[in-house]
């Protein structure tokens, strides 16, 4: 074999060397756990189909639409996001504890980042997009949020609107409650939900500045 190394030379205390082929590592991990009868393929497939079909930004959109149409719900949501989301919709699971919902207003724009890694409220938004996890976004949005929103996302935030960068941490997951677009009076909750984008719940989009006809 071409991988003649003393056991700890490359491992540095890790059970598997970091430079090993990741495809082999992923296959080895899964097959190891299955052969030891610690996990089953059915359990793993179930997770995939959950994240494929049920857990994604449509969930968050429903929460936002409810908050737009029900003032009491909006209040509960801003008070304790995780509880209000779980109670009304049953969205919970990993990355779902301690979801804090922050509200965009005429004067304040919130944008979410995780500078440590990639913390993100999975139950309401699904898995984070690639750019959210990338080092450039994680540093730029903190250093110069207004410019990053303009240059990377094409979102112009007026100078008199305060931008709050919410750094998600190991303890807290943020979700933005965007403003309701103008011209949506009388729309049903489900029609409203269809207007809510994933990006607006991360805060890299600000549809509340637009009239519904422009969206």
């Amino acid at each position, binding site marked *: 074999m071409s991988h003649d190394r003393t056991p700890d030379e490359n491992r540095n205390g890790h059970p598997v060397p970091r430079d090993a082929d990741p495809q082999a590592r992923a296959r080895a991990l899964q097959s*190891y756990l299955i052969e030891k009868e610690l996990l089953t393929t059915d359990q793993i497939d179930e997770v995939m189909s959950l994240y494929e079909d049920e857990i994604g930004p449509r969930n968050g959109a429903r929460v936002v639409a409810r908050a737009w149409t029900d003032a009491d719900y909006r209040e509960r949501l801003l008070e304790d996001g995780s509880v209000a989301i779980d109670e009304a919709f049953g969205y919970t699971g990993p990355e779902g504890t301690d979801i804090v919902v922050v509200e965009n207003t005429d004067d304040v724009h919130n944008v979410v980042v995780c500078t440590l890694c990639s913390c993100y409220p999975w139950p309401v938004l699904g898995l984070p997009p690639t750019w959210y*996890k990338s080092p450039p976004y994680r540093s730029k949005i903190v250093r110069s949020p207004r410019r990053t929103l303009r240059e990377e996302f094409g979102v112009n935030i007026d100078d008199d609107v305060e931008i709050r960068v919410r750094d998600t941490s190991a303890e807290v997951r943020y979700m933005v409650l965007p403003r309701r677009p103008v011209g949506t009076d009388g729309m049903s909750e489900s029609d409203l939900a269809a207007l809510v984008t994933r990006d607006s719940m991360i805060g890299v989009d600000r549809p509340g500045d637009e009239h519904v006809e422009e969206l």
Partner: protein
Amino acid sequence: MTDTTDLDGIIADLREREAFPERGGDLSFDAPWQARAFATVVTLYRQGFFEWNEFQARLIEAIKSAEQADDTDAEEVYYRHWLEAAEDLLSDQGVVVGDELERRVREFESGERDASEFVVGVDHAHTHTHSHDHDHNH
């Protein structure tokens, strides 16, 4: 080998759906092994092997110790960290013992083991989702 999974097929579907990220689950995997790593770890959590924040802490460590200001292959780099975090955590828990896992990684790398452990063969590709009955040997 009787254990098979149709993850690779699922990923093909997912990547097609990425054209409509707002509709689907918006999974941004670049390769099947990333989905495999993701699903394995989430399944371990669901089965109670660890608390989510225990895994999170390992992931942060892995990212910290390797960060580069470069976003080429962001998904690959990210899920490498994800694997490292899982391997380290399972090793500390004694679920993975000694060099068992490393040996297995080498066997996959060298081709001694291959993906036929997972990928359903062409001859029965259409039977894998809902008709397991005749696959089971008792």
